[in-house]
């Protein structure tokens, strides 16, 4: 019958308040860990995604819009790039690869992106990783109305090789704006866990010459993805100077990660608000430990008096109360990992659906260590006031009525 056993007995005896308090700690802890992990993982994921390229060339406008459009397949294109501009950058001696993209159509909200087969044959979207087509499929023929569908889009749209569909005009789905052209699905991409999974890839000419599109822009592209040669260390600076500072027709978004990091800097206040809310929730949860134990002190005082009469020292009682408070917090933090997994799975699902970026709920983050340590310590601290009350319990008064 040692101290942990006495604490265990007390927790069981007050099972309802123990459970409710532990759950409130779990909610606070789970929220705190989730906010922290989402913040860190999304920063790493969004600034790390570059689809295997160094820069994006697009129409004059916002670099962020350009990157969101060309890399994350979000947002509208800021405008068109003339075919000649594409050819210029493609021929640049510092450029290893320049892949044109054309956007402007969708199928049930999933955007069609026109490009060249080189995107699949030459690009490593991550070190040693190429886009691959699932067995039974193949890449599109650039001269035909064929499509290779990203894995996520294929699953959501229920498309498989051999299926046909009519695209819709615009980047948002409007059933009244259906094109007459029929496209055939010839392959499904293997999951890449990148924004490419949410796209229906078609030949560049497919977008350029889609019925209803402006014939004057039939050779234009929406953006050019640029990869420098390994030896061209200063190419980015030079092109930044040439397109952004000296020129005024085009925008050169470089480096891609830097553009996204700027976005995160701009919305940093939102992170801080979320973090503040989660700190407050954690603090309130800790305060609930204090309230829960403190409120039960009147009924506990008789038990404390009995324990003292049996020979328990004041410090034994104080230790038992502090340990109980820490134990409730620890129990809460065990449950918190369940809440964390649930919250992270839901958020990761939403982010993947909206952006194609994949967050890993169980990827290790330091918050998984410091948050439980902090909340358990705070829980123990919350036990100090009831422990002090227990310390001052008058044994003779609570033991038995004086005869």
């Amino acid at each position: 019958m040692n101290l942990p056993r006495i604490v265990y007995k007390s927790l069981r005896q007050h099972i309802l308040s123990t459970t409710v308090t532990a759950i409130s700690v779990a909610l606070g802890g789970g929220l705190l860990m989730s906010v922290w992990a989402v913040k860190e993982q999304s920063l790493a994921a969004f600034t790390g995604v570059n689809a295997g390229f160094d820069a994006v060339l697009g129409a004059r406008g916002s670099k962020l819009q350009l990157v969101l459009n060309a890399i994350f397949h979000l947002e509208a294109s800021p405008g068109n790039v003339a075919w000649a501009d594409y050819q210029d950058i493609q021929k640049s001696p510092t450029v290893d690869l320049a892949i044109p993209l054309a956007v402007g159509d969708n199928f049930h909200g999933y955007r069609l992106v026109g490009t060249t087969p080189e995107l699949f044959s030459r690009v490593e979207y991550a070190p040693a990783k190429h886009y691959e087509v699932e067995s039974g499929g193949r890449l599109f023929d650039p001269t035909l109305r064929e499509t290779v569908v990203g894995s996520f889009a294929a699953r959501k749209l229920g498309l498989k090789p051999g299926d046909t569909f009519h695209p819709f005009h615009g980047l948002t789905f409007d059933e009244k704006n259906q094109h007459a052209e029929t496209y055939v699905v010839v392959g499904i991409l293997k999951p890449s866990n990148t924004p490419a999974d949410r796209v229906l890839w078609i030949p560049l000419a497919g977008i350029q010459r889609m019925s209803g599109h402006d014939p004057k822009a039939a050779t234009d592209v929406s953006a050019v993805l640029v990869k420098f040669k390994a030896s061209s260390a200063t190419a980015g600076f030079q092109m930044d100077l040439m397109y952004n500072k000296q020129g005024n027709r085009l925008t050169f978004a470089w480096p891609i990660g830097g553009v996204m990091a700027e976005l995160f800097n701009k919305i940093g206040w939102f992170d801080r608000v979320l973090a503040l809310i989660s700190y407050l929730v954690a603090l309130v949860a800790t305060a609930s430990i204090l309230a829960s134990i403190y409120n039960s002190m009147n009924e506990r005082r008789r038990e404390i008096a009995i324990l003292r009469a049996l020979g328990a020292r004041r410090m034994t009682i104080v230790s038992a109360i502090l340990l109980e408070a820490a134990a409730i917090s620890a129990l809460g933090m065990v449950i918190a990992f369940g809440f964390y997994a649930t919250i992270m799975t839901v958020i990761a699902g939403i982010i993947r659906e909206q952006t194609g970026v994949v967050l890993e709920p169980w990827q290790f983050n330091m918050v998984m260590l410091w948050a439980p340590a902090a909340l358990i310590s705070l829980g123990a601290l919350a036990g100090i006031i009831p422990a002090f009350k227990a310390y001052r319990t008058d044994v003779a008064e609570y033991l038995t009525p004086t005869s």
Partner: protein
Amino acid sequence: MTLLQIQNLKKSYVGPEGDRHTVVDVKHFTLAEQEQIALSGESGSGKTTFLNLIAGILKPDSGSIHLAGESMSDLKEPARDRLRARTIGYIFQTFNLLQGYTCLENVLLGMSFGAGVDAAFAEKLLKRVGLGSRLKHYPRQLSTGQQQRVAVARALANRPKLVLADEPTGNLDHQNARQSLTLILEACKENGAALLLVSHDREVLSRFQKVEDLRKLNHASSHMEARK
């Protein structure tokens, strides 16, 4: 051999109006090892305060309590707690069992602050008091007589030299009271413990060879009577 020796023991309380009331004023009291003494006294005569002073739960205003060779009244609180746990078993009128603990756990809990947990001895004690088949029962699952027997087993758990019993039969019916008292007297003898029992029940007092009248011992009580 003397186990307990009390000299000039005084304890007073400050009343709600700020006036001080002396509730215990015992000039001299002794108890030999394995001796069994009953203290008679009416309600308000300071019986419980007297026992709590002996147990070291209360600290006297003045005077000395020597228990098993140690001066209880001079010890600091942690040392008094240790001495109480090792030397004294306490049986309360209201039993004071912990409701969240089984019979066996209540007895083991008594051991954990004293001589150390000895599950075999705890079971033996509970069998001795007739609760061998109720080891895992909680107090609420027992009758009042059975609860009192658990309290007796718990009081003997640390092989104490002295058992203090505060109106131990006060909450029991006639038959249970008689059986319980027999058990306390016999169990203390078997375990070599002295017994100091306070009661105002004449039948209980008649079972003791030595009965002290707390009113005569306690000058404070006499003063209060005189004032009345």
